[in-house]
């Protein structure tokens, strides 16, 4: 430990000498690593977004109950009251025609002008029933049995589709982590092997002088770490920029999509990418050193 602290300056100097040795090769490797990490963090970000959507939609599970023509507003209120007795119903309230129109105006925002082309309010009154997610099916069945109910709408299909997308993204995310990880390991291991080959005389001299393995190896481990960590940092900055751009694009046209907080999303992907870059940098360097050890007696 003493030898490490006493030689910190030497190790960093050696690390940057190694990185300067194959400038072009190292720059290209850095670009590849950045790109791999960037793609990975984008996949992970979309995965986190879809997971959030599923969670939010599950928490807000609700069904909308529409009535047969001829049923008056009074009976709507009575029915809304009676739905509260069904097991699994958390809340139930009537949404009038006017409120339905108002909601659509809020959702459409600047585009709500399109609603002025209707002579009459195109929306009808309905009952909004908040339901325990696990019991949506049973509640839907009970409500549908009522003779004045014409149609019950739930979000099950949408939820199922989002859940499928989320599963696909989880699969792709895992695939990407494996692919980016393998590619980074191969790149770093190759760079380290190259560095060891170019420095084999210096390594040999150090070993003949009695230098311990850690003393000889540490600059190589650090150079691998610097490459992956820099790649991870660049990828995180790119992700921050891209997510910001994506959120700005999504906010106006489809404001009702439940997105996780932007800062939290960026923070989570950054932690993941930086953690992975440290792990892969260390593993790749150690792999490179181990495979060279057989040839260079390191």
């Amino acid at each position, binding site marked *: 430990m003493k*030898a490490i602290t*006493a*030689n910190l300056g*030497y190790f960093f100097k050696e690390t940057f*000498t190694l990185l300067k040795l194959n400038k072009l090769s190292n720059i290209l490797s850095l670009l590849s690593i950045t790109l791999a990490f960037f793609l990975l963090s984008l996949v992970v970000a979309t995965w986190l977004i879809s997971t959030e959507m599923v969670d939010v939609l599950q928490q807000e599970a609700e069904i909308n109950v529409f009535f047969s023509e001829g049923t008056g507003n009074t009976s709507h209120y009575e029915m809304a009251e009676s739905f509260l007795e069904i097991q699994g119903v958390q809340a139930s309230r009537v949404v009038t025609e006017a409120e339905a129109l108002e909601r659509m105006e809020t959702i459409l925002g600047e585009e709500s002008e399109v609603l002025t082309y209707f002579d009459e309010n195109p929306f009808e009154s309905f009952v909004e029933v908040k339901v325990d997610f696990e019991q949506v099916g049973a509640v839907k069945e009970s409500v549908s049995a009522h003779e004045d109910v014409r149609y019950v709408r739930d979000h099950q299909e949408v939820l199922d589709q989002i859940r499928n997308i989320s599963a696909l993204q989880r699969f792709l995310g895992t695939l990407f982590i494996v692919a980016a990880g393998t590619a980074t390991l191969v790149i770093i291991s190759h760079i380290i092997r190259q560095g060891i080959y170019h420095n084999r*005389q*210096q390594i*040999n*001299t*150090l*070993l*003949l*002088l*009695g*230098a*311990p*393995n850690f*003393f000889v190896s540490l600059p190589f481990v650090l150079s691998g770490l610097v490459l992956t960590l820099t790649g991870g940092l660049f990828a995180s900055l790119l992700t921050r920029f891209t997510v910001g751009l994506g959120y700005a694009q999504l906010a106006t046209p489809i404001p009702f999509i439940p997105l996780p907080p932007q800062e939290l999303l960026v923070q989570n992907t950054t932690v993941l990418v930086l953690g992975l870059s440290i792990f892969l940098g260390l593993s790749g360097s150690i792999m490179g050193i181990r495979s060279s050890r057989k040839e260079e007696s390191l």
Partner: protein
Amino acid sequence: MITAKKLSLQYPDGTNALNEINLRIKAGELVYITGPSGSGKTSLIKLLMGMEKPTAGRLEVLSHSMNRIDVKRRMLLRQYMGPVFQELKLINGRTVLDNVILGMRFLPIPKQQWKTLATDALEKVKLSHKIFSYAENLSWGEKQRVAIARAIVRKPSLIIADEPTGNLDRKNAINILELLNSLKQEDTSVIITTHATHLIDSDIVDQLIQIEAGQLQASSMEEF
């Protein structure tokens, strides 16, 4: 300090580099190993430094059996040695001072003393005026001195110089040998290999070992 009994070394291609050599070197001795090129001098040095393992016989260096030495013990043993390699092995792109300090970075010597010790060693080899010169810009004789400074700065128990006069003119060769001869101390042995027997000052040498075709031809000490 060093004991060899019926020491042999055969390379994988079948070449017999050393054949049943017996020798004993005590602490504080100045020993010259001579012989023509290819006689086995460098092979003996390789065995002493643990770069090769004996194929037969026994070799003990600084109380370590070189027949069974593992990587860790070999590393520790080398820390007690001050090697001056035939090809010098200085690191280009580094200053003379950096090269000398490199020899003690991993030894139990406090960092605060590195610069002072390196400067003292360079003063001893008369190179204190070149401490900030880059290794690649020095003459061979100067490089030789830096390699010696890197060896002595470690305060080794054993200094091994392999053909230190190889690329030098007569005047520089004598200077280098005088310098190496002066490094002998009570607890520091010096082993020098050379084929230039005419440059050896036999008055100060404790042992003169002559090797030819891998066989010990003559030694100023008794054989076992």
